[in-house]
């Protein structure tokens, strides 16, 4: 499978270039597993609440700072 993660992500998000689209179509034609992978990507995109998850994820970085506050377990680790 010669499709990079960036190309595949761009293809799934509809922002891929014409050349990348051709690359993806060629891969679909020649690789059954890739076709199956795209199906799974579609299934994942159809997960209930995925858009809400995306919105929440993209919403704000304020809560990001909370993530580094979990430092209790990092003490005395060698």
């Amino acid at each position, binding site marked *: 499978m010669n499709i990079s993660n*960036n190309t595949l992500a761009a*293809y799934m998000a509809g922002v891929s270039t014409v050349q990348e689209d051709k690359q993806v179509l060629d891969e679909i034609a020649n690789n059954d597993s890739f076709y199956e992978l795209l199906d799974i990507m579609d299934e994942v995109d159809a997960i209930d609440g995925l858009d809400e998850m995306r919105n929440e994820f993209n919403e704000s970085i304020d809560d990001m700072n909370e993530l580094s506050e979990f430092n209790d377990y990092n003490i005395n680790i060698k």
Partner: protein
Amino acid sequence: MNYDHKKEKQLAHSMKDKETTLQRKEMLSFEELVKRDRELVQRIVSDDIFAYKFFHNKCKPLLCGIIHTIYGNVADYEELVNELYLLLKKPNADGEYWYALKTFDYRTSLFDWIKTVAVRHFYTPSGDLFTIPDTILDSGLAEEMFSKLNKAVYRKYLCFKYLDQLADDVIAEKLNIERSQVKTLSRKVIKQLRSIIENDYPEYLSILFQKSEVHNVDINEKEIGASDVDLRTHEANIDVFQYLNAMPNKYYRRVIEALFLDDITPEALAQEMGTNVSNIYNIKSRGLDQLRDVALYSNEICNLENYINLISDDRKRAILVSIFIERKDYDVVCSELKITETQFKKIKKDAMKDIKQLIFRAKK
């Protein structure tokens, strides 16, 4: 393969994603999103605690959804997310960590990129997971299992595929579907069959379903070829204890041994080691990092002393000799060199960089 069908599919993607993009724009403009994602990636690569919590907590809803879609309820979430975390954190040939994450080109949101990488990493082609031994086919048990599937097309597929052993294009013709749709059908069928076997024939689960292998996307984002797989199989035969024994940190070693070889639960281990469960997970993650380094440099480890001796800085050399050759505890090394733990960590980190460069230079 029906090219029109694929084009339709592609068009559907574009339309759907334009809608998603519009929804996203209501919240943050694309430029703001890119700026936010750049900050996020920068933070991940520079702050280990943040990175760990980001993937294990912030990404949890997304990764849970993906894992559930691919594996159903049978997967170990913690283990799979750790695999993904380590994949993204993996260093390149120059020892630069988070190399895979740094390849993200910001054309999509970080959320969508992580989603893509995660699906790709967790996905295993359905045909690679499922096999039926002849004994089960001959005994008629397979037919009994197949008869429990709820759709006629699913039952037919299994009979054609495993009892009549027909090729996929013949099955497609018989079921009156596109050849390209056979794989999709196969995945759905096997997913349902698995759940039936789990409930009604649990004793056959491990016989029919192999433990799924991690999908092989390497840090340069190319599929690993057959020769690499052969090599990996060969490497897998090397005694894992050899690597464990070569790990310089005894706490890491103990945690990896306990969780992976002795099957001790994180809770029990936390109690045994007098610490909390979060700490165990953290040590596990760091231990896996160290184990991977040990495995990565296993061929060079027998020459490690020679490499260490090439390091010109006395303190760096002393630290490396103490921990790798003499296997001294870190606090003993600190006290012998009369340095604080913080100083020790910094010097060790620099020394590790030096030795990695020496090893990679020698490899090249």
